[in-house]
Structures are given as C-alpha cells and as structure tokens.
C-alpha cells in the first residue's frame, strides 16, 4: 500500500490473495467449510431473514425432557455418552416445556396421560416440533389392542417425524432428529393433522349416553378429552 492520502484502501486483489487462491483452486482446502462455501469470498451473505431463522432454528434445538415408556430409556441413551445427540446441536434437554422447541414423544400414550401430554405440548412456545419415537407413537404399537391405549401420538398432537422401531435404536433417533433439522432448515412446515382428540369443556360435548352418565361427576367447565377406541384408525 502506498503512503498517500488514502489510508483505508482494501483492494482485495492485494489482500490475502495467496491463501484465497490456494483455496479456490483446491490446492489447500483447509478452510473450505460449509460456511465458507455459503459465504463465498465476500464477507456478506444475502439471504432471506426467515431462511436464516430456519437455519438457526434447525441448528440449535432444545429438547423437552420428557419420558413416557420404554422408548425413553433409549432416548436417554441417545442423549448420553456414546451416541451424544449434543453433537448435532440438539441435545440440551429442558425440564420445562416453556423452554423447549422439540418434544420427543417416547412411548405409549394411554387415555389418562393423553390430556396431560396435550397440555404439555400446548405449553411449549411456537414454533414447536414433535418427534414421535417408536411404534407406540405411530399406531399404539404392540399395545394397540389395549382398551386404554391411544393409537398413536397423532391422535393428540401433530407429529413432524416418526421414528419407527420398538424401541428405535439410538442411531435411528439421531437420524430422525437430523431429518427434522433438515426439514426445519428447508422451511418445510409441520404437517397439520386432523386431531380427533381435543381438550374441550365438558359442557361443550355432544350430549349422549355417556355424557349424561357422567354429568354428576364432571363440572361443565372441566376440560375433558373424549375417546372413542373403536373409531380411531
């Protein structure tokens, strides 16, 4: 650089050219990270803000610490040593639903628990994502025939990713989480399912035999969930 009156020249043909050339031509690709490729040689990136947000969201997910049944044991293994979900930017279990982005539903959902799970889901701030872990969250799994079992998590809350298995191996769950991250980063929105089971006020239910029977026991304003074992798929 010359010593005249223009002290702030950044003529980039003269700055760091050697390293950059080496990188561009592939002689030295130490610095060719994904990020670099996205940035190119310029210090700016142009992107849509929501695209950026999606990318951020997918790269840092807070999971809800939520255990139901057998699958939660494998979920714990996924969080812990060896499989270490944290490596993928998704391994900080949060004890409170208010701090969590993702809920992994690991296990069989029964009638008594479903309203509570719905409540926990409702308490999570938007945007929120759901991973259904195990056959039980897909269809009721091995317990589908049970009188008390909800045939899949999707009866209660919308699910973004299903990880099949009974229980899925930790690797499978990791894959499921990675897939979810990919979807989030691509801005694919979560599916909206028709939810047959909703929390409603008891007074709003259609009157029929069972409602009449229970009218003594349940207040009009109490929240209830109505099950119809035979009707769900």
């Amino acid at each position, binding site marked *: 650089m010359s010593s005249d009156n223009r002290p702030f020249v950044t003529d980039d043909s003269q700055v760091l050219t050697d390293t950059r050339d080496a990188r561009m031509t592939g002689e030295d690709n130490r610095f060719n990270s994904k990020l670099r490729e996205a940035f190119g040689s310029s210090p700016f990136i142009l992107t849509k803000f929501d695209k950026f947000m999606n990318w951020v969201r997918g790269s840092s997910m807070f999971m809800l*610490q*939520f*255990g*139901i*049944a*057998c699958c*939660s*044991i*494998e979920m*714990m*293994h996924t969080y*812990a*040593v*060896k499989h270490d979900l944290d490596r993928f930017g998704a391994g900080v*279990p949060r*004890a409170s*639903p208010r701090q969590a982005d993702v809920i992994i539903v690991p*296990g*069989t959902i*029964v*009638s*008594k*628990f*479903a*309203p*509570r*799970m719905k*409540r*926990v889901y409702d308490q999570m701030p938007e945007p929120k994502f759901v991973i259904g872990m195990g056959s039980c969250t897909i269809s009721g799994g*091995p*317990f589908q*025939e*049970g*009188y*008390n*079992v909800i045939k899949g998590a999707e009866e209660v809350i919308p699910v973004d990713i299903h990880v099949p298995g*009974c*229980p899925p*191996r930790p690797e499978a769950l990791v894959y499921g989480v990675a897939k979810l991250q990919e979807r989030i980063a691509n801005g694919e929105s979560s599916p909206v399912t028709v939810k047959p089971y909703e*929390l409603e006020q*008891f007074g709003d*239910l259609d009157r*029929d035999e*069972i*409602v009449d*029977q*229970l009218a003594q*026991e*349940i207040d009009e304003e*109490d*929240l*209830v*969930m*109505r*099950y*119809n*074992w*035979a009707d769900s798929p």
Partner: protein
Amino acid sequence: MSLEEPEPDVPATVEEQSPDEIAEMLSDHVIGREEHLNAPGYVIRPDAVQDVLSTLKTEAGYDHLSCVTAQEYEDRYESIYHLKKFDDPTQEVSVVVPADRENPVSESADPVFRTADWHEREAYDLVGIEYDDHPDLRRILLPETWQGHPLAADYDQDRPQVVPLRENANPLQEDQRSEQDTDTMFLNIGPHHPATHGVLHLKTTLDGEQVADVESDIGYLHRCEEQICQNGTYRHQIMPYPDRWDYISAGLLNEWAYARAAEDMADIDVPEYAQVIRTMGAELCRIAAHMLAVGTFALDVYGDFTAIFMYAIRDREKAQNILEDLTGQRLMFNYFRLGGVVWDLPEPREEFFEKTRDFLEDLPEALEEYHDLISGNEILQMRTIDTGVLPPEVAKSYGATGPVARGSGIDYDLRRDDPYGYYDELDWDVVTEDGCDNYSRLLVRLREVEESAKIIEQCIDLLEDWPEEDRTIQANVPRTLKPDDDAEIYSAVEGAKGELGIYMRSDGTDKPARFKIRSPCFSNLQTLPEMAEGEYVPDLIAALGSLDIVLGEVDR
C-alpha cells in the same frame, strides 16, 4: 448359594404346616378346598377374609401377601390372596374368596396387610369386585370417570369414554387447598416431571418445607398388559410383552417370570445348558438395571447430569452390547422361549466370552469410581443416611421386596430362597443392609452388581467348558400348548426390583383365561408415604429415587 456364611436369621427349617393342619386352623371359615399348582387353596367365606388372613399371619407365619388376583367366572367372582413366608417363600397358600355374581362384595384384607390396599383397588378397578371395609376404594389405574371394568366379561371396549383434566389446571390459582389448615400447600409433582422417573403423579401436601401427606396417583402408563397377555397364545405371543413391563433393560428377568410360570404349568423341563445361558443373561440385565437405578438416583440427589449419570450409561452400554450380541436386541430381547432360549451363544464363542470377561474385569474399577463419587461422598451421605427410613416390619406389611426389602435388612431373595435356573449351583451371596434408609438401598444395588458379576463369571466358565454335543438350547415343546383345564399357578422370580410373579389360570385353550402380573414396583411404591411423610421435599425425591420404580411395571 454360599455356604460359608451361615445366616443365623434364616433357620434351615421354617416350621411348616401341612395342608390339613391349616384347614384345621381355619376351621369353619373354609368352605372348600382347591389345588393350585404352587400351593393348596382354601375357599373361604367372603366375610371371613380378615379372620383367615390374620390367623394365617400370626399363627402359621404367612407374613407375606405377595399378590391379590381377581377374576370373573361364569357363575361368580373370585379374589385370590397369594400368601408366602418371608423366611421361606416355598411355603405358600392361596386363599380363595368367592363373591356373588350379582353383587360382588367381599371383605377387605387391608387391616391385616397394608399392601392389600392397592391390590384391592386394582381388583375393583379392572374386574369390579368391591371390598367391604376398604379405606379408600377408588379406581387406581384408570381415570376416575371410566365406565365399566375392563377385565370383566361384559366390558365393551368400543364404548366411548371421557377423561377429565382437572389437576394441574393452574397450579398458582389456589395455593391453599386444605380448609382446616391453611398453612399447608398443595403441590403436584408429575405426571410430567424429571424426578418421577416416568409418568407418576404425586399429590403432595406440604407444611412449610415438610411433606405432610403424599399420595401417588398412578395409571398414566396403564397399557393393559394383562388383557394383552390374555389374548396371546402361551407358546409365542406372550413372550415379547414381559420385556416391556420393566423396561430398564431388565427384559430377560421378566421373561423368566413368564417362562417359569408357563413351564411349571405345562410341565416343561429346561435343558441345563439353556439354564446357564438364562442365568447369565438375566444377571447381565440386572447389572444394567441397577446401573440405571444408581445413575438416576445420583441425578435426583445431585441434579448432576454429567459425571455419574454418564458413567452409569457408559457401563450400561457395555452390558447392552453384550446382550445385543447374545439376543440381537438392545432392550426388548425376546430371547427366552418356553423350554429354553431361542438361539445359542453367538459365534465365534471365544470372542463373546472375551468381551464379557473384559466387561467383568473393568467392573471393579468402575464400581470403585461409583463408590468414590456416590457412596463415599459426604454430600450424598448427608442427603441419604437416615432419610426415607423404612422399618422392616412396615416393609413386610407392604409386601416390599427386592433391593427395597433387602435395604431394610429383610433377607429375602427368590434366587436363593426359591431357587430356579442355575442359581443354586453357583457361589454367590444375598446382599442385605440394615440401615433401612435411602443409603442402604443404594448400597444394596451397588453390592448386588458385584454379586451378579460373580454369577456371570461362573456361568461363563461353565459355558466355555460345556461339551459341544450337549448344547441343547430348547426342550421339545409342542407347537400349541394347551395346559390342563382349570390349572392355576402363581410363581415368581427375583426381578431387578423384587418379586415378579405371574398368576395364570388355563381354561383348556391355548390362551390363558386369566393372566395377572404381580409387579414388585407396584408394592414397593406403596411404601412411599411411610418413608416420606414428615420429611423434607428433597428427601421425598431421594426416597422415590431409592425405590427405583419403573412405571411400566407399576401400571402394567
């Protein structure tokens, strides 16, 4: 079993009464006799339950009500009280209480055995028998607004049900729940809470920082296991389910419970070689289960998600790898078959042995670490010694078994006392601790890991030298198994959490007419109020952690 250390409080012979002596003792309360495969059965009048049970308890020494089974016949309802002796569980009697078809009522056993409280509530909930004199006869597993009793004959599964969400509606809305004593505060712990080890709901009333009252609300994982087993065939369809009762890797222990009951019922002999494999696999499961118990206990007490929990998981992973080599699955093994196991050890055998040996070799060092970090740690000692005290008499009355009972000095372990598998040929000890507190229960688990390691090592030695031509892994079992009509059996094994029993009644078909699971956690969890009331909230959490419940087994 070790012979080096004679246990003075387990006399070699516990006084045994012949069936006729017992019948005499019960005199005119008995209205009939039955023969169950495991024990003599006495049919008694429905209003004499308390008399009969207290006679049996005080005069004949049957101090362990291990299970209450309820079922419906075409012409009557029936509750069966399975009694045993803590000092010698091979001595059993069944007390059969018929109840009227139209108006099924019988007397509650709660004043005699505290454990009857929950068992009878469950019988009421699922089958529909009512118990006179019961302190609190409500539904226990199903939501309180449920209609019908699902294991009764006329239950219609297709009817709609309505379940309310009342509790937890707004925790801050009404802080003072009790009208008389406005100093207390009601606190919900669960059903979604990290310290409850699953979906357990504790309704706690606090007086300042002390627990004035705690009531467990269970049933959030009631997966109808009994119904599903009743719909499965003995030979193949039931075996996958036991894995899912106590799912903390204790699969093989649970499978054994079913295998034992069914094999006794259908008179199947298991080849010795398969017994050794079973014993080895079961103990590997026990190690894995206890590791998780210890890890989560430390997590409850320290809130430390890093060191101890991770160490425990690390050691579990090793055990699970070995089990995976053996069975093909990490968690839900489905490895036992009636009459043996499904396949032989993996080839090459040497590699498997070496891997297992490596695991066992590293174990003492790992345990050393646990003792450094946990049992030798002053903070943990302060939190756990003399908290959650469970005196042995109370534990017995609640039917507590497993490490919970052994931590209260009750020397009761079915592996030794009612031997099955290969246990009585091997050299190992039953671990007991006399502290009765949270710390003792923790120590029992850690020490049991050592004993299990001993057992596995001996099994490996045996398997290594087993002559190749004798390696029969399964007995000949007919393709469809139909035990004799009306055969009834209750038999139990020592699961990871205690006595895991199965009651089965056959009706001559290839499916059981009644399948009842006696889960150790169900009984153990009942002791929680005894341990926690009057203590601080953190001690409640520690006590719950030391019980090591698993909700899949509590709710079934």
